[in-house]
């Protein structure tokens, strides 16, 4: 197998990976850097983020406000030292994006404009109309072209990390255009591969969000943290699951049930007036809004459609001018994919899987449990998002912790030698053998699409907005069975050049591992907190579960689940308060 040596390998070239790469290049241009991605950087799913990125910039706001909103939004499962670091670093990172040319929306004075967002006490969300992720990703990618030391390997699918003597010493990847496998020997590796929404059937996440990086780290011995916390977004388009940004509620959109009633007032989020009010009604946090939808559906107050139950997101009171200026993509998406014009009609919406709060367990410096391996962005869990992420914190997170991962990896690479060549070769040979086995297998097993559908269905039925022990047990049982059947999954395409069947087989393997970590973590957490709601354990239980769960890979066995303490520095756990009583 061909070998490429570099000081640092970054896997994933979305927002976090690109920011990490730029941080490495700026910290020391002599460091050899390979940036691997299974897609061209501008295809990465950061591109689909819409509403904005949170960070203190206005005089009416404070770092304390951002800290407290984030910690209570996360139902006190956030590590507070990480949140402090995050809210402190976010403003400069967002300003850096401005200096790099990001086309932030502006006030008439020329200053950067901000908009209100769910669960945030003060408006602090920077935005570029309703294509913030798109503009951030393209700004980062275009800026990355300035740095000659960033060597990109576009459309390289990473299959495995190389580990020797308890340290990560590189990665193996398939060059998709040739099918050739290449071993990358590195002093430090950063994973920035994003989330895993595709384990669920109905998600805002693009096809590429299959948890590859999470699974790679997990298999290599790095635990996955808080995987039971999966965020549903309250406003997805039926059928496609296309995201309608929370920014549309930040700009003044309302949610009504089949009677035209603003039902959120029945769920401790009211009163509805005066409106819009921060941290209330439509500007409540995502977990609460999705739970309210679930109850409305149970009461028969949602609207039946062939694509399932919906409520209406009504933007009509904003008027055409404001919609065109602030929410042009929302209008276009609703027109194209739902056949309605939000200027004249309400948009049908339903909760949709959006974000994985959990991920590869890292410390505040992005270091994982495996020396030499770092992780940042949605694939990682620092944790600043706790049990429920606030909208617009993740676009700031990829900058703050992406940059931090780059700097941490650079420092590690400067003080550590390459791992052993023998160890790297053994790992690379094992990775190649795994692929060869797929090619040699007969074709009597399950299809990729069949297994994937079975996984999607059991995640939806067992690990959705509300969970209960019996169905979680069933999901765990089915996932174990699917993992066993996966060992014989069909590879129908035996060619080498751009073999997307092969990639889908490998992605499915990663998703099954991630799904199992989610289901088992959810099964063991006998409480309700943030996005993890157990009908059989409806209360939060700080005595037993003010803890991060850690899922450790054990091969064909189910994952081992253990717990670690949450870092509480200055905000003792309290009740989450939204609606009129929220300060």
């Amino acid at each position, binding site marked *: 197998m061909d070998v490429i040596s570099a000081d640092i390998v970054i896997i994933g070239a979305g927002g976090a990976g690109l920011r990490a790469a730029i941080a490495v290049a700026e910290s020391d241009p002599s460091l050899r850097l390979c940036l691997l991605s299974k897609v061209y950087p501008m295809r990465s799913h950061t591109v689909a983020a819409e509403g904005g990125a949170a960070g203190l910039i206005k005089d009416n706001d404070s770092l304390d406000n951002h800290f407290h909103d984030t910690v209570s939004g996360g139902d006190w499962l956030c590590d507070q030292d990480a949140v402090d670091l995050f809210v402190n670093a976010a403003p400069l990172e967002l300003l850096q994006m401005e200096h790099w*040319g990001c086309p932030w929306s502006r006030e008439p004075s020329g200053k950067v404009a901000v908009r209100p967002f769910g669960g945030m006490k003060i408006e602090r969300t920077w935005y570029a109309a309703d294509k913030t992720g798109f503009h951030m990703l393209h700004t980062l990618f275009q800026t990355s072209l300035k740095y000659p030391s960033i060597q990109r390997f576009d459309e390289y699918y990473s299959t495995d990390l190389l580990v020797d003597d308890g340290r990560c010493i590189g990665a193996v990847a398939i060059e998709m255009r040739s099918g050739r496998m290449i071993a990358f020997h590195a002093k430090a590796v950063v994973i920035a591969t994003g989330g895993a929404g595709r384990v669920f059937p109905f998600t805002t996440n693009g096809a590429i969000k299959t948890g590859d990086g999470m699974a790679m780290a997990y298999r290599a011995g790095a635990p996955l943290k808080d995987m039971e916390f999966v965020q549903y977004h309250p406003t997805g388009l039926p059928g496609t699951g296309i995201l309608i940004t929370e920014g549309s509620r930040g700009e003044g959109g309302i949610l009504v049930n089949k009677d035209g009633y603003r039902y959120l007032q029945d769920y401790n989020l009211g009163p509805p007036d005066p409106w819009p009010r921060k941290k209330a009604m439509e500007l409540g946090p995502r977990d609460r809004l999705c739970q309210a939808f679930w109850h409305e559906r149970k009461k028969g107050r949602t609207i039946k459609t062939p694509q399932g139950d919906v409520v209406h997101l009504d933007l009509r009171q904003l008027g055409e001018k404001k919609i065109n200026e602030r929410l042009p993509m929302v209008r276009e998406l609703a027109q194209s994919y739902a056949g309605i014009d939000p200027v004249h009609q309400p948009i049908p919406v339903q909760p949709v899987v959006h974000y994985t709060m959990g991920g590869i367990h890292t410390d505040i410096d992005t270091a994982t449990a495996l020396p030499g391996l770092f992780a940042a962005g949605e694939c990682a869990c620092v944790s600043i998002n706790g049990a429920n992420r606030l909208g617009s914190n993740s676009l700031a997170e990829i900058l703050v912790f992406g940059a931090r991962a780059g700097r941490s990896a650079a420092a590690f690479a400067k003080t550590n030698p390459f791992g052993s060549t023998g160890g790297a070769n053994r790992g690379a040979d094992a990775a190649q053998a795994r692929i060869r086995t797929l090619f040699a297998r007969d074709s009597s097993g399950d299809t990729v699409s069949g297994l994937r559908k079975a996984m999607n269905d059991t995640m939806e039925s067992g690990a959705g907005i509300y969970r209960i022990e019996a169905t979680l047990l069933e999901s765990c049982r089915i996932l174990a069975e699917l993992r066993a059947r996966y060992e014989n999954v069909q590879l129908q395409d035996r060619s080498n050049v751009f073999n997307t069947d092969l990639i889908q087989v490998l992605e499915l393997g990663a998703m099954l591992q991630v799904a199992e970590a989610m289901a088992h973590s959810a099964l063991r957490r006998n409480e309700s907190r943030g996005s993890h709601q157990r009908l059989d354990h409806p209360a939060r239980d700080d005595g037993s579960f003010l803890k991060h769960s850690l899922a450790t890979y054990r091969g064909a066995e189910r994952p081992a689940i253990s717990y670690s303490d949450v870092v509480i520095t200055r905000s003792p756990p309290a009740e989450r308060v939204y609606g009129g009583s929220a300060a």
Partner: protein
Amino acid sequence: MTDTMPLEVLTLEVLTLEVLRYRPEIENEPKFQTYTVPYRDDWVVLDALNHVKDHVDATLSYRWSCHMAVCGSCGMMINGEPKLACHAFLRDYRHGVIRVEPLDHFPIERDLVIVMDRFMEKLASVKPYAIAKAEKPLEEGEYLQTPLQLMAFKQYTQCINCLLCYAACPQCGLNDNFVGPAALALAHRYNLDSRDTGKDERADVVASNEGIWECTFVGACSEVCPKHVDPAAAIQQTKISASLDWFKARLWPGAHP
């Protein structure tokens, strides 16, 4: 196949997809393969391709991700026109055959997957990043930019690099060295940004024979652009600006570098 197709699929209206296949290890040249897919009113061509991939022929390869017309992955020729497969609705092709081919003017890597190395080089060649004469320290805050100043270039920031414009542009078919619509529009975007002073650094590529002057103003790029970037306008504006710079440099030597 161990999973069964849902019954309603078998009873619904169907459509015929003709897809250009090319597997360089197997076939000497591209040839069409025909698939039957169910018709659904809310489906796009990408959904039909995914149906083929999942239920009929797992060996078909194409790029896609977001399914919401923003990642730019799924550009293809659909009945001869460059389109995003995720934004081309079956209902607009209801009667007759849908022919799907890789984007024109690019080498085929495999099936509907094109080789886009040259585009990536062209994009980088126009220096598409903010170039400031004197970088302001971050601690001093943002560069002020009024909504009007933002408006001057905003349209040209909307490009998703889907390459439909390269497939539509006749010059791109004739001269592989033409920098092309998307890259030139992006250069114009930075040139127009009030925070940028890099126009002269970009001029070597932008105002070269294979830059703006290769464009014959057919305007096909702007017609097919799914994001209304209007690269044709960007190129014509750049031509005017470059001509003025050329005259200025000759009429008032020293007034302009």
